[in-house]
């Protein structure tokens, strides 16, 4: 019994579309609305105890633009499985799995930081690697290769520096 068959047996009501992956990992495409059900079934009925990563691929200019990707590992069965779901590029939003796999919190924050994909249900969704008031999402395909400097930041520092005396109340606190 292959991994896919085992998952399909646990999820008779959901239509699973299998995909071939270059690394041979069993891969399943599902609709975004089914993602939570599939992941709950993977954890509770198929023995996938651990989340490896949550990330996205930007297929711009194709629509739906983002291809979400969750990978899970089962230590009891020594198996991996990957779940794909497509998300539109207009205010992209996917359900969070932090309540199921607490360790996915950082992955989701990084994914939000790089792609601007909101995770519904994530309790602390803020940028992980870029400054918090940065306006852009660097791993999107329409982000320029040279990058965009957070111009506003150092203008703001310079303005504050000009305004205050050498030892200010703000830096003394």
């Amino acid at each position: 019994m292959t991994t896919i068959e085992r998952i399909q047996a646990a999820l008779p009501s959901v239509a699973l579309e299998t995909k071939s992956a270059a690394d041979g990992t069993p891969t399943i495409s599902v609709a975004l609305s089914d993602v939570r059900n599939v992941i709950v079934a993977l954890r509770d009925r198929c023995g996938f105890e651990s989340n490896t990563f949550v990330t996205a691929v930007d297929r711009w200019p194709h629509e739906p633009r983002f291809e979400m990707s969750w990978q899970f590992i089962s230590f009891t069965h020594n198996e991996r499985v990957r779940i794909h779901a497509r998300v539109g590029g207009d205010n992209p939003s996917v359900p969070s799995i932090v309540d199921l796999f607490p360790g996915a919190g950082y992955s989701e924050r990084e994914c939000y930081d790089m792609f601007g994909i909101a995770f519904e249900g994530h309790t602390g969704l803020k940028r992980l690697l870029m400054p918090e008031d940065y306006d852009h999402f660097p791993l999107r395909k329409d982000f320029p290769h040279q990058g965009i400097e957070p111009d506003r930041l150092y203008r703001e520092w310079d303005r504050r520096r000009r305004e205050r005396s050498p030892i200010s109340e703000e830096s003394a606190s």
Partner: protein
Amino acid sequence: MGPLKPAESHTDIESGFMATRVDELINWGRKNSLWPMPLGLSCCGIELMAMIGPKFDISRFGAEAARFSPRQCDLMIVAGTLVWKMAEACRTIYDQMPDPKWVIAMGVCSSSGGMYDSYAVVQGVDMILPVDIYVPGCPPRPDVVIDAIIKLQRKIERERPLKLLQSGPAIGEYDEGTKRFVRTPNQAVPTTRSGETLAPGVYEH
């Protein structure tokens, strides 16, 4: 040591007097007791540790008292790749250092961004700080950084602390065109011994 010399005649020493200018005395004290703030951000930090350690031993130049509180430092050595996430912390540390203060950009990453021409990396710390000395190398050998400290000492020798008291601290100006902080010495400070003013960023060594 510059113009701060023992008295010429034997009788002055006997009487316990030495004549010098206040500027020279202050500069002599400042340049020989630089307390570095070791902002080791990546691999340059390892060379920085080697520099402080016994083999290279910057205590020969009076700069071995590395303090990890910006309140006690007057020389900030930015050693390594500065990313934008860290940039605000770096600027805050600089702001918390008391005047007078100097900055050495150690390595190509902190001088110009180096090989990281990326959205995440500050393309030279002079985008957020005025820099006194740029040190090339990836990472630079400790002796090159020691050379930078010696150059900085020569630069400090030429400052006029009393005039700075009148006119405010000589910290860098932000240039909108190049988006860089330029470490322009205070207008009251000549950049050469003879009093001649050189272009900003050019110093006599």
